[in-house]
């Protein structure tokens, strides 16, 4: 499971370990140097969860921009007493806004596709560049990291959590964002410095955030985030649909079976 830490200590304690099959596309919880040196095969579950995760990222963005969950909360607490006037409870339009995707991998590009159907402009930044053909096909434009944060109306994170990306989205990057901008994170909590994010939100430097992942999970009710109106918080459910979880399970089992038969897993890290 993505919460199990399969580090050197665990691996060395399991002398006969031949294969690891993770029920996730993230594999930062597994010590790959150790598995490589011991010839242990590692399987993971890319592709089958791409759309479900991109769907949730997009849904979170829609929710925070148009204040859907906030509105539902208001209604359930008895706060909707009279019909709103024309300038009440306004949300932010999507059309003509710029989405900045950090990490143009499978999930990032699936997100880009949806953004375009909503009339949004898409820019990206990542470890490397896509080919010109890929950029043209996806209809997205490459920008520098600083430009991504300063030009986007929404930044959506689709990067793995590594030593390099740890705390990457910090005070310095957040300060570059527009005051009316939003940040969406369905990747890993620790790519954002959460304390810096909370401060930025409290100071009104950002319009809001939609987060499925957090620095520490579970997120408690005592977190400052849980007291804010302009954030949407979901309990790490990016890939959580019946069909997608079933497909992930089938793939995880297949990976394991193949590895146990001495073959490279269908999806090997």
């Amino acid at each position, binding site marked *: 499971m993505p919460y199990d830490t399969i580090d050197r200590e665990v691996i060395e304690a399991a002398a006969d370990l031949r294969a690891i099959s993770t029920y996730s596309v993230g594999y930062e919880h597994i010590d790959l140097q150790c598995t490589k040196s011991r010839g242990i095969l590692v399987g993971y579950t890319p592709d089958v969860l791409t759309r479900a995760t991109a*769907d949730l990222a997009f849904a979170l963005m829609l929710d925070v921009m148009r204040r859907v969950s906030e509105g539902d909360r208001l*209604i359930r607490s008895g706060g909707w007493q009279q019909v709103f006037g024309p300038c009440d409870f306004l949300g932010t339009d999507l059309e003509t806004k710029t989405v900045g995707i950090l990490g143009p991998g499978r999930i990032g590009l699936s997100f880009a596709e949806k953004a375009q159907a909503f009339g949004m402009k898409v820019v990206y930044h990542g470890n490397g560049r896509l080919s010109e053909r890929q950029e043209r096909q996806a209809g997205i434009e490459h920008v520098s990291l600083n430009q991504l944060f300063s030009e986007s109306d929404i930044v959506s994170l689709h990067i793995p959590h590594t030593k390099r990306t740890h705390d990457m989205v910090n005070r310095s990057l957040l300060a570059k964002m527009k005051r009316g901008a939003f940040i969406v994170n369905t990747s890993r909590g620790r790519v954002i410095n959460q304390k810096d994010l909370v401060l930025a939100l409290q100071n009104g430097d950002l319009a809001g955030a939609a987060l499925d992942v957090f620095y520490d999970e579970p997120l408690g009710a005592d977190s400052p985030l849980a007291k804010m109106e302009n954030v949407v918080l979901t309990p790490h459910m990016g890939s959580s649909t019946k069909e997608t979880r079933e497909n992930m*399970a089938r793939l995880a089992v297949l990976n394991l079976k193949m590895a146990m038969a001495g073959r490279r897993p269908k999806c090997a890290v």
Partner: protein
Amino acid sequence: MDRVDGPLLDAAPRLKVISQLAVGLDNVDVAEATRRGIPVGYTPGVLAKATADVAFALLMSAARRISESERWVRDGQWTLAFHPLRWLGVDVHEKTLGIIGMGQIGLEMARRGRGFDMNIIYHSRSRRPDLEAEYGLVYVDLPTLLAESDFVSLHMPLTPETRHYIGEAELRQMKPTAILVNAARGPVVDSRALYTALKEGWIYAAGLDVTDPEPIPAADPLLTLENVVIAPHVGSASLASRGAMCMLAARNLIAGLEGNPLVRCANPEVYKA
């Protein structure tokens, strides 16, 4: 939400124009206004995308249980970091989106559905073969739409014919895994039947931007359910939409006061006198 009908028009004998800040006209007796030679302005088009955005947001919130799980998190109930079978929602890709009412908002909804790899079927007062060709939409009759859709989204105006268009019979025809979205007008759905449908599992969930009545009273039984997400009628509530609506309504009003044809007139027959 103000009623503009016979008695009000009686009280305003010098009224030259009515300018509605909305595209829905169910609160205006347009026929009566026409009889009295009063043009009625409204604001179609400029709010179509913003409204479709909210309709799709509700569809996704219901499908992926966003508002429901958010409540759970804020309430401090997230204690186990991860469980593979917790908070399972439904996927939208390759599912069927059934759109009832293929006007401008229905079309924007269809475009968004295509962006999510959905199959789009529709039922409407008039067929749109031009849109069918361009967007791959398939026209079906109502029973087929209800039986085959994984998501049903309502985009009709409220008229005497569409009142309680979706009632017990229609809800029973839908799949138990289906989600109903209403960003049109509250009374298009029989709310009591909807409550029963959600409680007994005739359908999976619902996303509503409009209710009957509005605001929805705090004691309404729908609010006791987990599988419904309700927004406070925010369909056109974005700066750009409201700005465009206000400008259009103002231009309609000025045109009417100056005796010129309105920019967007709901009853152009009023000029054929």
